[in-house]
């Protein structure tokens, strides 16, 4: 079974702190994604990566950056956390070669910025 893990289920940070959200997948997938989920807004794509050290902006990249130094790990960074970044963050991965294009999701991290 594909497994996508996220470093924390719940996280509380203060305004202005630098925040790291970590995501690891164990199926050698090339593609990895970060989404945020807010009630009434669905999921929105923040950043994605199709290879090590490669990154692409999604629909809402402002205030975020990412790092992918190893194939299995994709980190989302909030350089200076703000209260409007309080949200659920979901990581996903998908293979390039299978042709199914299914994305496999992690359990999510609920981040609260106070």
């Amino acid at each position, binding site marked *: 079974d594909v497994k996508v893990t996220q470093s924390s289920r719940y996280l509380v940070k203060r305004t202005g702190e630098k925040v790291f959200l970590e995501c690891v997948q164990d199926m050698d997938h090339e593609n990895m994604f970060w989404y945020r989920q807010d009630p009434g807004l669905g999921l929105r794509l923040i950043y994605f990566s199709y290879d090590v050290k490669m990154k692409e902006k999604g629909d809402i990249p402002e205030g975020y950056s990412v790092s992918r130094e190893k194939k299995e790990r994709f980190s989302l960074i909030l350089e200076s956390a703000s209260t409007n970044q309080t949200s659920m963050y979901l990581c996903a991965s998908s293979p*390039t070669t299978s042709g199914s294009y299914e994305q496999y999701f992690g359990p999510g991290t609920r981040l609260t910025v106070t």
Partner: protein
Amino acid sequence: AQTVTQSQPEMSVQEAETVTLSCTYDTSENNYYLFWYKQPPSRQMILVIRQEAYKQQNATENRFSVNFQKAAKSFSLKISDSQLGDTAMYFCAFMKLSRSGGGADGLTFGKGTHLIIQP
């Protein structure tokens, strides 16, 4: 840019009934995939069903089937013989095929439909 619209924020049906969730999308792309994902209270997103835009035949997975109308840009999900475990948020999602065909593009989601199955 693509948009996905789910017009039903919440639906409630009795166990064993059939329910249809609506989804419409807007795109200028010709090659794309459509998905329905389920998110139960545990928060784990699970793929329910996928549809390739170039296939006219509607996808089915056991009790789940879709009605894909490409010209109308409509992609509804039908759940037959609904069960208590079907209670969840359901998200319709769109993915255009990347130039490389590698599927690296992210998903565009609708806002979701909260489906409640009553005993």
